C-alpha cells in the first residue's frame, strides 16, 4: 500500500502545544538530565532566560503533534515508521509558558526499495507567531507492516 504520490507538498493545519514547567521537568527527568536550567527559575534567569527553558530535543514534543496529523492523513501506522534522521534549528529556546503551534509540510515523498521516504518540515512558532524552531526529518515507512505480515 504505497502512499498517494500527490500528498507531496501538503501543508497541515497548525497544531497547538502549551509548554508547562512541569512538562519540561518531566521530559528532562525522562532523559536523565539534572540541569537546573530545566527546573529552577532562578538558575534559568542566571543564564539570561525569562523562565525555565527546555532541553534542545524537547522540540520533538510540539513536532510530534505535527507528525501525528501527517501520519494519520497518509493512513500510516507508527509501527511501520522508522525515524531516519532529525534536525533542529532553534531560533530561540522553548520556555515554560510558551503557547506553541507547529505547522507541518510534507516536503518530499520518495520511494526506495518498496518503502516510502517522507521528508518532513515542521515550523514551530511562539504565541506571537515568532519563529522558535525549524525541525526537519526523514521518516521511512516500511511496507512490511502494511501487508500485515
Amino acid at each position, binding site marked *: 500500500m504505497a502512499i498517494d504520490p500527490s500528498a507531496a507538498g501538503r501543508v497541515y493545519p497548525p497544531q497547538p502545544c502549551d509548554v508547562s514547567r512541569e*512538562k519540561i521537568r*518531566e*521530559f528532562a*527527568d*525522562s*532523559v*536523565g*538530565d539534572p*540541569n537546573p*536550567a*530545566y527546573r529552577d527559575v532562578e538558575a534559568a534567569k542566571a*543564564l*539570561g*532566560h525569562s523562565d525555565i*527553558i527546555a*532541553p*534542545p*530535543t524537547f522540540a*520533538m*514534543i510540539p513536532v*510530534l503533534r505535527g507528525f501525528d496529523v501527517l501520519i494519520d492523513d497518509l493512513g500510516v501506522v*507508527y*509501527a*511501520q*515508521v*522508522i*525515524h*531516519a*534522521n*532529525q*534536525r*533542529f*534549528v*532553534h531560533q*530561540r*529556546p522553548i520556555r515554560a509558558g510558551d503557547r506553541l503551534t507547529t505547522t507541518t509540510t510534507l516536503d518530499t515523498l520518495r520511494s526506495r526499495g518498496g518503502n516510502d521516504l517522507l521528508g518532513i518540515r515542521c515550523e514551530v512558532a511562539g504565541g506571537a507567531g515568532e519563529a522558535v524552531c525549524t525541525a*526537519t526529518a526523514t521518516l521511512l515507512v*516500511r511496507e*512490511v*507492516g502494511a501487508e500485515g505480515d
Partner: protein
Amino acid sequence: MTEVGAALPERQFQVTRTDLVRYAGASGDFNPIHWSDRVAGAVGLPGVIAHGMLTMALAARLLTDWAGDPAAVVEYGVRFARPVVVPDDDEGVTVTASGTVTELRGDGLLGVDVTVRVGEEKVLTQARAFVRPPNHHG
C-alpha cells in the same frame, strides 16, 4: 577549550526498558516498537529498540553540559543509523557519546561532530551541532 580540534569528553549513558517507558510517557511517542517485543519482531526488528530521539537527547547532554547554557545548542541534527536494541534486563544497553570541535563558522557558532556508539558500532551518524562558544569566564 573552544578551539577547533578541542575534544568533548566521552560520556556513557545506561538505557533500560524502564527508561524507554519513561521517555515514551514524557515525549508522547508511544510507538509500540519501543515497548513491545511482539510488535518489534513483527516489523522485522531484532527486539524492542530505544527511541532514536532518546539516544539523540542523551548525546545532547555532551553539548549542553559543555556549553553551560543549554540554549547555546542552536542547531543539532543526527541520522539514526542503527537501532539501539534494549534487552529486557536490569543492565539494558550502554550508549557512549563523544565529540570534537571541527569548525568555527562565520556566524561565530562552533561546529561539533558527535560520535555515538553502542560497543564499537556507531548508532547515530552525521551527528553534528552548532553551539555558541562556552563562556565559563563571562
